[in-house]
């Protein structure tokens, strides 16, 4: 069977890298906590994409299983994160992360 996947793997990885970079830039430059959060999700999912791609490439299911774990953890993390954001909003009336700088030295 002539599998073409090895030839297209770089495309997947490139997409994954692009998504990850977008996520990083989003985390670093945006001030809205929800946007940052979404960027973090983007980064997680770019990693998931890389995992899945490699799992296909290597004919191993480990990567796919890890993706499930990542998604589970991400879901839990979203729950905690959103809760935090709500709590912050309740006290600060803002979700701008630069306003939450009381811990500065």
């Amino acid at each position, binding site marked *: 069977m002539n599998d073409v996947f090895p030839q297209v793997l770089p495309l997947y990885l490139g997409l994954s890298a692009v998504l990850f970079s977008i996520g*990083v830039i989003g*985390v*670093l*430059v945006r*001030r809205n906590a929800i946007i*940052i959060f979404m960027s973090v999700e983007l980064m997680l999912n770019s990693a998931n994409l890389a995992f899945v791609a490699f799992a296909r490439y290597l004919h191993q299911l480990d990567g796919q299983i890890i993706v499930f774990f990542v998604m589970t953890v991400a879901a839990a993390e979203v729950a905690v994160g959103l809760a935090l954001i709500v709590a912050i909003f309740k006290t600060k009336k803002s979700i701008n*992360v*630069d306003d*939450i*700088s*009381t*811990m*500065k*030295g």
Partner: protein
Amino acid sequence: MTVFDFAWLIIIFPVIGLTFNAFFSTRFKEEIASYVAIAASGLSFLMSLVVLIALMGLPPDARTVHVPLYTWAVIGNFKLDAGLLIDPLSTTMLMVVTFVGTLIHIYSIGYMHGDSRYRRFFVDLNLFMASMLILVLGDSYVTMFVGWEGVGLCSYLLIGFWFEKEANNNAAKKAFIVNRVGDFGFTLGMFLIFATVGSLQYADVFHAAENGQVITGVATAITLLLFVGATGKSAQIPLYVWLPDAMAGPTPVSALIHAATMVTAGVYMIARNHPLFVLAPFSQELVAVVGALTAFFAATIAMAQFDIKKVLAYSTISQLGFMVTAVGMGATVAGIFHLGTHAFFKALLFLGAGSVIHAMEHGHHKSQIPNTQYPISKHDEETSRQVDKEEKFDPNDMRLMGGLSSRMPLTFWTYVVGAASLAGLVPLAGFWSKDEILGEAFAKGMTGANVPFMIAFWLLLAAAFFTAFYITRQVLMVFFGRPRHAAAAHAPESPRVMTYVLAILAFFAAVAGFINVTGLFTHWLEPEELFAGLNLGVAVTSIAVALLGIGLGYWVYRPRPLPNGVDDPLRTPPVVGWVFTKVLNPKYWVDEVYDFLFVNPFKRLANFLAFTIDWRFWHDWFHDSVIAAAFKRTARFLANPIDLGIIDGAVNGLGRVINWCSSKLRQVQTGYVRNYALSVLLGVVVIVAYFALR
């Protein structure tokens, strides 16, 4: 083992007595202390008697027994042995010391009765006995010196026995310090002996002296230095001044220490060193002349004193002068003979005077409290002196006495015996011994044509005249005429324990002289010496002189009323009165001269040293300016640059550095999530780069 091997018991008995009395007697009644002390002294006497009899049993040329006891010290090649030397001389001294000592112990029961320091008195007496016996029995100069200093200490303790009174303390200190001057000479003499002979044992030294190893010059130096010691202890010119003041002590002490025994230590020492003195004719002449001068001057001073004990004190000095003259001339037998008889009659006189003083005090109390039987036991000399302070009643003052012969007959008769013995009336003890000294002086001075001894003879003869005079004066003032004070009118006879002792002593003061009438004592002490016998001419002269003195004394002081304001008949005649008042009564101003020459310059020097050198220079200047200032400067240096600068600076600097670092580090914590995220990213980039590029 012979009896001599137990001779150390003589010394041990008083030591046991004093140990018991000092540490254990407070658990018993006071009487026990005196009984123990008397027993100790009495056993010592019995042991001395045993030794005497044992020594008599030996042939005359074997009567020098050396009893080694133990090795005292070993320093390199020098070995110091402690031992006893038992020979006729030391045994004679033993008998005198222990016998008179025991009697005076007994007398003290009565005299010290009721004293607040009764037990202590007997401790001191026993300590004195032990020291004196060490002095007498020691077989070397060092052993003798132990006793020599021991008796000096006891003398000090007992003169200052009633230390509540300042004057008594001063007298004690004077005695001690004057004796130190003498001891200085004695120790120098010892050093010179050691440097010359290389040993301090009598046997070695005298052996060397007899073999001619000690040349005349050295022997003169040694003997003169030893004589300096003797002038201190035996109260000779120029160091006699302490003895009259020593009368501040209790009267039994005056009798035992300052009349009968301790003060004769110098005489004993010169007699003991006879082999050395023989080598130094100049020393012998000097000693004889000094002794005779002392005898003469002290006798003249004694004529003009009013204190009953001061008269006896100067009399003692005078009689010691007789003894020193004798031993100085080499007439050891005569000197020691007089030492023995003097111990009896002078102890008798002192104890008699004590009895009179005792009676005067009690009489004074009785006259103060009429119709009341004053409890005699409740007071003593000291308390009564305190009571009498307001009206200045001096129980020693003969001007207040008079007429005591009928009130205290036993004291009176014994006193007369002692006085006659002192005056040298035949056949009492004092006559024989004094006459022997005069005979020796005559033989050596006139017959031997030796000018110093001749001078000594005439001085002694004059002294004998004054002796008879002053003792007659004393007896008449104290016992005859009418009582001149209420105290004398009420004076009771002393208790029997005192008067019986007086009687015993009176017996010996009367008969002790017979021991040498036939040369028995001479043969005992110096078997090789020929007994000269009585020089009839000298004897007649001395009796005539004594009778002349007594007669003149009686003529001047016979019971008769005196003009008002005149306390002594000798004050009224023109020249004699001036001499009496201005020269003799102030004791030739010797104390004042000594004060001017030695005491005051010394005090000034001491003040200078104390206040100027020690206080102002040493304390104020040296301590403040040097020690304290340097300390302050060092402290300031340590405090400021070192502590504040370096140590505090280091600690503060460390704090400041940490503060600065942390303030810089703190700025890393911006509080902006993005910054943290960026640093996480950069960390990841670095880690990934590391893994990728390695």
